[in-house]
């Protein structure tokens, strides 16, 4: 098993125990961003349990989670996969220069009606 320190960090800051997962796949079945993800919620759980975290750190899947809490709500074992996705995303964006979105990117993504809520939410998820 590699990356054991990172695995422990992710388990600690997420508060999730991936060993509780029984592989039912309900998290991925509920996920409204499933089609856009390279790694799906159930794969995050299994890969983190196995210490196979590097592919997740480098995947755009980190930025597809909508924070809708559906997988957290519907997991029959209370594993709460979105908390693991969030912990890996933070491990990625907290590194210097690794913000997924910067203020310079925003003007090109705006339209006149877009609520401020969208911008602040994106920043919270995509940058530190």
């Amino acid at each position, binding site marked *: 098993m590699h990356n054991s320190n990172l695995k422990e960090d992710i388990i*600690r*800051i*997420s*508060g999730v125990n991936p060993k509780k997962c029984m592989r039912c796949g309900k998290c991925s079945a509920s996920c*409204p*961003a499933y*089609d*856009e993800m390279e790694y799906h919620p159930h794969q995050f759980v299994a890969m983190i349990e196995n210490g196979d975290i590097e592919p997740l750190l480098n995947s755009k899947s980190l*930025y*597809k989670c*909508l*924070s*809708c*809490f*559906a997988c*957290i*709500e519907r997991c029959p074992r209370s594993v*709460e996969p*979105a*908390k693991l996705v*969030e*912990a890996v995303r*933070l491990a990625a964006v907290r590194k210097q220069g690794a913000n997924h*979105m910067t203020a310079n990117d925003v003007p090109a*993504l705006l*339209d006149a*009606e*877009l*609520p*401020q*809520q*969208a*911008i*602040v*939410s*994106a920043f*919270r*998820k995509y940058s530190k």
Partner: protein
Amino acid sequence: MKVSYFPGCTLKTKAKDLDEYARRSCEALGITLEEIEDWQCCGGVFTTARDEVATKLSSVRALKEAAAKDQPLVTVCSACHNVIKQTNHAMQTDAEFAAKVNNYMADGAYNGEAQVYHYLELLRDVVGFDTLKEKVVNALKGKKIAAYYGCLLLRPSGVMRMDDPENPTIMEDFIRAIGAEPVVYAMRNECCGGYIAMESPALAKKNSNAVVENAKAQGAEMIITACPLCRYNLIKNGADIPVVYFTELLAEALGVKEGENA
């Protein structure tokens, strides 16, 4: 009765209607919304990581001010409500996190003492839907209205404790109280796409269209929401029935919508 009020960034800008109708309706119901002084943006989404402290300080400061006045803290925006309620829950249940947060609090510790209400909860649990019904002067008779809950009002239900997360009734009961007919449909608690509208508009479009099509298939003539971003996504992606804030209908029913009967 006076309650503390956290309007949030969007209610001061793109969603002024949501705010204005909320204030006027509350006055008509005998409740004054006292805006928290110098509130700061909640950040839009709750960061679930336990070691994330700075992003939650603005919520704690608002909660602390409400607690100091011995008032509940009321929000209207679904996102503000979700962030503030989840932060309050973390302050109540995670002592290590609360201790770190309290290092940044100037005058005394806060440990989750404030009560947090969404405006809909204020209507249901403080005013009461039966009382609301009696105060309606302009019942919206015959209107078939679909409630769009989205994600943030209901989940995670163990923390939000607003309603059954898969079979909620609070917005349908609200619709009945103002004299209209609720339309129940499967997609009412599924995600519109939220902030992904910026990076992957196609995903927001797919999700939003599924919500609107499902509501229309069940006979909806109008959709109501508490969330500015849900409203944006539904309208932006081509909703061909009106998508309005629930507070606008409330103000209309209570006869306090500007220009009404003018």
